[in-house]
């Protein structure tokens, strides 16, 4: 899973306001709950992304069908962008769902 991802790359984002790792709770139950909670959130976000991709896919199909009879370019452009959006949503959704599954597994190991 996640071929090509560099695990030794430090995080590029600043996360001010959060506790440092040293202050993490070491109670396994608490840690499992926290990881599970993150996994649930990621799973929901991934599912929502997949649903949104379906919406954009429907839009792309309808716009393509209507645009086929049009002498203008706008509907084709709209359909093209909607199709690209479907792709990004599916990919992002897939990443999130797989990450949720990974965290679920990891939580079970804690």
């Amino acid at each position, binding site marked *: *899973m*996640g071929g090509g*991802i560099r*695990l030794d*790359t430090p*995080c*590029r*984002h600043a*996360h001010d*306001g*959060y*506790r*440092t*790792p*040293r202050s*993490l709770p070491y109670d396994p139950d608490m*840690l499992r709950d*926290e*990881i599970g*909670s*993150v996994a649930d*959130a*990621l799973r929901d*976000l*991934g599912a*929502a*992304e997949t649903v*949104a991709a379906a*919406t*954009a896919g*429907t*839009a792309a199909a*309808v*716009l393509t069908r*209507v645009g086929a*009879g049009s*002498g*203008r370019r*706008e*509907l084709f*452009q*709209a*359909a093209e*962008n*909607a199709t*690209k*959006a479907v792709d*990004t*949503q599916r*990919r*992002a*959704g897939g*990443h*999130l769902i797989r*990450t949720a599954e*990974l*965290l679920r*597994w*990891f939580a079970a*190991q804690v």
Partner: protein
Amino acid sequence: MSWPEIRTAIDAQLVALRRAYAGWLARRDRLAATRGRAHHVLDGGTSAPPREALAHIHTAYDIGAETGPLLAAAVTSIEQYLAAVDPDNAAGAVAGLPGPKEVGDPHGGHGGPDAPGERQPLGNVWRRRGHVYTEQGGPAGFRDFLARGAGLFALHTDWHRAGGHPDRHGGATTDRQLVDRLRYGHDPLTGKTVDWETGKRHRCGDHATAYRRDQALAWAEMCCYASRAGTSARETAERQGRRAFAAQVAACDVFGPGFRAELRGYSRDAASGIGIVRIDFPDNTIIRAHYRRDVPDGEWLLVTCFPDIPKVVPGGEAAT
């Protein structure tokens, strides 16, 4: 598809894509917050899975960054389409349109006292309401135009008559005029060999054609102008500052497979070289429209719009 069907379908997708964009914004915030929580929980992990999970979350966040702009661009394109095709949300009605203003210089009027006098071109006030018909495609759009486009048709006729000469190909042009045009080179407007537009000798090709009704002429012009070929030719002419452009579309795309019912005409008898024969329009019949403008950035005026048959050149390919 009828215009109400097109409009309903587009409106529904516009709403869906706007909601999708709003949903993307909201999910973006939630994902950012979840990413922060994930760091909070997992940053201390020393094994691979937590770091892999964090890397995946960042990847998903980066990929998702492209979604919003794509959805917004799709929405913008649809809005641009509606603004161009039905800018007044009038669905093809003419109510509220301003009266046409005079544009350019008077033209024509040659051929003596019996010929129509010179005509003053008028500005195009109806085009912005005409797209909802052509967007429905050939036969369906024509049916809708016939059913409820009377106001637009009247404006189109006035505009065409002022800027061009529908008298050569319209419904009122008689078969006798078409035959005399071929046989004697008579301009239907003057009844003589004098060209009403130029005052020079009137010219006619191998065919003299007309529509069976003026509505068909108006519709054919609208289709030529709105076609992709017409749009491309017009945009090229405008980019290059030219004062004329021509467009052509297949007659079957304009009127459907029954296009012959809307057309009539005569040809010189190609076999004998003499005589005139009634045209049996072939499947590859086209509609040609010619436009001009008096100044480089002026309004496009319709010179003529007529049915034509592509010439067959040696090798069997139809020349257009």
